[in-house]
């Protein structure tokens, strides 16, 4: 099963070098283990936008689109046997934040890819 991990921190601020290094090692291990198939950093939520439809009306919440330089979250695509494996991987990943960037808060969202005809 393929999973998308979407990591969104609660506060703006780049990861510490220690956290970056720990994440790099984990990503390297996961690539070599054949589980991690794609990954990348994301810019702060505030610099993006949300386009919504509610009550039949389309609305846009637009970020300031400032020239942000700081990556504060990211995504990863994993191939794993099932949700339990995805949970185990996500917990290990989030534990790194706990260990290497005290005070960090945020969410790692797991979404399974749909497979086969919709």
């Amino acid at each position, binding site marked *: 099963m393929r999973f998308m991990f979407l990591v969104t921190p609660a506060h703006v601020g780049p990861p510490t070098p220690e956290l970056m290094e720990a994440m790099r090692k*984990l990503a390297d291990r996961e*690539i070599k283990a*054949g589980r991690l198939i794609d990954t990348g950093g994301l810019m702060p939520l505030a610099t993006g936008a949300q386009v919504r439809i509610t009550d039949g009306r389309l609305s846009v919440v637009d970020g300031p689109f400032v020239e942000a330089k700081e990556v504060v979250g990211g995504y990863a695509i994993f*191939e794993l046997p*099932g949700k339990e494996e995805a949970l*185990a991987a996500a917990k*290990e990943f989030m*534990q790194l934040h706990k260990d290497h960037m005290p005070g960090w808060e945020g969410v790692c969202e797991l979404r399974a890819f749909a497979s086969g*005809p919709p």
Partner: protein
Amino acid sequence: MRASRVCIGPALRLSRRPAAMTVARAHRAILAIWRIEQPRLITSLARMLRDVPLAEDLTQEALVTALERWPATGVPEKPGAWLMATAKRRAVDHLRRGRMLERKHELVAWDLEAEQQAMPDLDSALDDDIGDELLRLIFTACHPRLSREARAALALRMICGLTTEEIARAFLLPATAIAQRIVRAKRTLSESGLAYETPRGEQLSERLSSVLEVVYLIFNEGYTAARGDDWLRPQLCDEALRMGRVLTAIAPHEPEAHGLLALMELNASRTAARTDTAGEPILMLEQNRALWDQLQIRRGMQALGRACELGGAGGAYALQAAIVACHAQASTAADTDWSRIAGLYAELAAIVHSPIIDLNRAVAVGMAEGPEAALAIVDRLVCEPALKGYHLLPSVRGHLLHRLGRYEEACAAFGAAAALAGNRREHDLLRRRAAEAAAAATSS
């Protein structure tokens, strides 16, 4: 202040308590962690003990301990470190016992001290580059002295972390049969002194073929599984793909490893399109190509490109991958580059002598150059003993004869093919083709 900010919902909090977790669910979660950690556990222990089968036994004991304890205590914060510490303790005990019997383990004991001083935590585990050790493990599990079936079982157990029961279900065999196979294979390795060795240089490429063969066997076992089979069967494709990715990561200079990975990724990219909602198979040329997995095709093409860069374009796996790539890159069936496929089959036939490859080449030639050239190839295969009883030979022949307007011969060929067809669906299809040819014969 921090405590007030950490807000865990009631549902989340509940799921942490063992009572809310059924034992079965807890076991699934533990096995999930196990699959992530196991290669590093075995490789670390194998390094201490210089014995892969023994290392595997002791890591299994660590798993059993976790399965016993964690449902009650909850999963520890750093489960990998916990498993590593437990497994190493077992290894230390084992070595101590051995040392009391014969005091010749000075060297090992020295290693042991070093190992013990570096008590494992998550970060030091991440620092370990286990590439070489993992390669050793894979080469040991897939030793050519073992049968292909034994290699497959050992690889799934030691590299993918599948349990004996899971392997048995995947191969539709009783668990006792798989357990015996594993025990026997491990004994063979231990008794013949093959329990811990890494081939290097030329020997590595040679031995690699015995590994690739097993990975491809596992892949095909999963690929031929039908929808509705136990989910573990198709899962074998994913395990084989994962092993292929591991191999290309730790032996990046071996073109055939990339070739096999490309072949598997490209074949697996069609999974969603291969069956209809009733589970009936759909032939490749009739598949809905929108359902082909483009991410997987990209990965397959990358691996194939890598195999070619390394000078391996002419390898058996790379050639097969290049053939599948022709299909993967055609946006409609009509766009297929059949003459390239025919050429690739000719190259493949030159290195792998197989009448089935010749038959496939005939089909491609038929599409590229027309039925006459193809029929010449097929007619040469009619006396081939290996194809005697193979229904696709008269089936392809019938198809070509029909296109040439030789309807009576086509009818006879389809009739012969129907009589040989193993499954009902194919049998019915071939009988219909025979009837169509017969009708065409009378009206012409």
